[in-house]
């Protein structure tokens, strides 16, 4: 079947189509959005839905076709490059191509991004159906998909950075989608600014890569930033590997919301819920993890950088999980949960288990997208109610949402045989076997908290008595098919997605590890022995998560007064955690206010008002004015005086000429 496809298009063209189709969707929808601005969208609505949903699906189909072709290679390396579409910059010392690289890693990412992306686009048709900015929404969402696919498919670091910044732009636009609400517009600005801090590090890392390659006089080839070139001349990076890795990881900290730059992600929940599902859970925030795995040959050169990545990830995993315990907004719970799960991915990458990081990245995309879509379905049905204290008992009103949400919760909690069980277990086991016992212990604790906070959300939202006003509860109903179908598909993926990486101990094949093995030499050369220890850890982790899951579920559906008593008992700790450790306040005190003070008092009132306005502008005018006053004293209006000046002048002129 694929053979007949390749009679019409080459595989390279197919690769370009993956990125071109969402871009076409964005262009069409943007034109419609401009044409119908301030008017009723009318007949264009179906065109928007069509372009916005079908084109991403076709992109997914292209990616799937390429993937199937690649799997048919028996032992040869199936990766290929598209060649350059055009050269962005050519000089003797700098070459930047616009080209795509399809290899085992990028095709997995492209499948995940376009697949989950298509489902969320479909969901958005139902969720955003009544919104005035329908065309604008799809234009921005399609544009996001385009940039994200550029990010994962780029064959060089510069083009990847274009995608990196592009997704940041779309994230900003979509967080502030309802920009008439000033709080939402501010949340978008906050995300953008915090990401700039990380990106400054990322840029510095790229400069350093260029400096290293250029000063080593590496042959220019297809450019110093080309991934092929970077991995071929890997040895040049050895002296600078720690600095480069840490700077690049700085970018990942911003994009993937790790300590200390995670503060933008909870606020990013101001955007529409499908946006949270796609951008702030499944795809964009995992770009940092993807970057670390893509450049694993540089990170592997520096044990310190790897340990740093693992430590930041692990601490974030635990820290964010504790904050997830006390949040009452269902989307905020999921936001902290995302930060925590991203921490797990960095833990995996940091201990050198890059394939486990990608494995968890993919399964997380499935179940976290589903959790957000479920939350969106609830919010949609309950007319915007997001506080879990005002929900409850919804399982009768919306059974599909409820049970898909439970399946996703089981996946994230790591309850066998759902997908999260295999991926989280792979991470924890790798951390343990590679000798990072402390990191393993922290990750283990965070796993328990994860299953507690997520089943707290399940119990409080869908089970027990309802806390919602009765007439609101009675009006709640199951969402339309366009929302339910993507949720059911994602539920299937959340449950069975783990089968791509069943460990050998359980008689499975770690397909994803084998698939990626060509790209992750470090992981393969340091792979620990699989054995009984893995089995023991697996059972302990499962029981640990399971008992917390049951606890969370039962307490928050049947015994809702217990947690309040506990909160009263430990008032100080509860307030500390519930206020998110006052980190926003600390940042406000340490950074925002000093910056405001310097801007207002020094830059504005001193530099601008006193020097520029005061001395330079008004000073010049005043000097001229003063002298004009002095000189004008001569103008007394007395005619005889003027005559005297005239005489003096005449004498001077004549005298000068005569002498």
């Amino acid at each position, binding site marked *: 079947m694929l053979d007949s496809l390749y009679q019409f298009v080459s595989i390279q063209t197919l690769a370009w189509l993956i990125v071109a189709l969402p871009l076409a969707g964005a262009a069409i929808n943007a034109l419609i959005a401009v044409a119908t601005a301030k008017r009723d969208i009318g007949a264009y609505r179906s065109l928007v839905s069509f372009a916005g949903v079908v084109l991403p699906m076709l992109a997914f189909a292209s990616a799937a076709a390429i993937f199937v072709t690649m799997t048919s290679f028996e032992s040869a390396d199936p990766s290929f490059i598209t060649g350059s579409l055009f050269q962005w*910059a*050519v*000089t*003797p010392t*700098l070459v930047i191509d616009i080209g795509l690289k399809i290899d085992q890693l990028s095709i997995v990412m492209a499948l995940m991004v376009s697949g989950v992306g298509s489902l969320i686009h479909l969901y958005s048709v139902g969720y955003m159906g009544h919104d005035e900015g329908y065309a604008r929404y799809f234009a921005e969402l399609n544009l996001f998909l385009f940039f994200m696919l550029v990010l994962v498919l780029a064959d060089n670091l510069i083009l990847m950075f274009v995608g990196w910044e592009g997704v940041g732009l779309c994230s900003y636009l979509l967080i502030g989608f309802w920009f008439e609400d000033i709080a939402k517009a501010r949340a978008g600005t906050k995300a953008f600014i915090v990401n700039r801090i990380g990106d400054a590090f990322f840029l510095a890392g790229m400069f350093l890569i260029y400096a290293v390659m250029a000063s080593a006089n590496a042959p220019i080839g297809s450019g110093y930033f080309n991934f092929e070139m970077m991995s071929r001349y890997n040895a040049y990076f050895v002296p600078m590997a720690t600095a480069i890795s840490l700077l690049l990881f700085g970018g990942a900290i911003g994009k993937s919301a790790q300590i200390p730059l995670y503060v933008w992600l909870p606020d990013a929940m101001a955007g529409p819920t499908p946006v949270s599902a796609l951008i702030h859970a499944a795809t964009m925030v995992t770009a940092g993890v993807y970057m670390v795995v893509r450049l694993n040959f540089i990170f592997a050169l520096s044990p310190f950088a790897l340990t740093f990545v693992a430590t930041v990830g692990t601490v974030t995993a635990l820290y964010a999980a504790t904050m997830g315990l006390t949040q009452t907004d269902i989307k905020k719970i999921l936001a902290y949960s995302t930060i925590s799960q991203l921490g797990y991915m960095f833990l995996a990458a940091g201990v050198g288990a890059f394939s486990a990081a990608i494995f968890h990245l993919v399964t997380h995309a499935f179940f976290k997208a589903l959790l957000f879509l479920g939350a969106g379905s609830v919010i949609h049905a309950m007319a915007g109610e997001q506080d879990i204290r005002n929900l409850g008992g919804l399982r009768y009103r919306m059974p599909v949402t409820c049970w898909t949400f439970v399946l996703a919760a089981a996946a994230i909690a790591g309850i066998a045989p759902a997908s999260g069980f295999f991926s989280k277990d792979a991470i924890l086991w790798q951390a343990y076997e590679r000798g990072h016992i402390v990191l393993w212990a922290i990750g283990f604790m965070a796993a328990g908290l994860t299953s507690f906070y997520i089943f707290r959300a399940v119990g409080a939202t869908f089970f027990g008595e309802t806390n919602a006003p009765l007439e609101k509860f009675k009006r709640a109903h199951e969402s339309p098919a366009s929302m339910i179908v993507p949720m059911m598909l994602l539920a299937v993926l959340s449950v069975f997605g783990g089968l791509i990486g069943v460990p050998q101990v359980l008689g499975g094949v770690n397909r994803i590890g084998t698939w990626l093995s060509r790209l992750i030499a470090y992981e393969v050369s340091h792979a620990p022995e699989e054995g009984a220890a893995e089995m023991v850890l697996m059972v302990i982790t499962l029981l640990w998560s399971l008992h917390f899951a049951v606890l969370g579920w039962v307490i928050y559906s049947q015994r809702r007064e217990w947690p309040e008593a506990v909160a009263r008992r430990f008032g100080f700790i509860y307030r500390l955690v519930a206020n998110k450790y006052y980190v926003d306040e600390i940042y406000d005190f340490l950074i925002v206010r000093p910056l405001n003070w310097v801007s207002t008092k020094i830059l504005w009132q001193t530099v601008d008002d006193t020097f520029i306005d005061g001395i330079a502008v008004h000073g010049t005018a005043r000097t001229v004015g003063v002298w004009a006053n002095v000189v004008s004293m001569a103008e007394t209006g007395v005619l005889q005086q003027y005559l005297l000046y005239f005489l003096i002048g005449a004498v001077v002129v004549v005298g000068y000429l005569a002498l």
Partner: protein
Amino acid sequence: MIITVHHYLMLSIILFVIGAIGVVTRRNALIIFMSIELMLNAVNIAFLAFARWNLLIEGKMIVLFVLAVAAAEAAVGLGIIISIYRNRQTVYVDEMRLLKG
């Protein structure tokens, strides 16, 4: 058709002239502002065309400087336009003849 440096220069000239016409004919300060940006970017295109033609990096560097300056200028310019609007409820330049004698 082969696209040569001449085509880029023609594009640059066309954009520059459009921008210049915009600056002298439009009344809305915002549009004038956008026209100035258009002129700046027309110059950028010329820089890039020459840089590509001579395989030099300097032209590309200058473009980055122009972009940075243009961004700063946009921030200041928009701030001025907004404060003018707040004071006089208009952004039409022909309603603001303060510099006449």
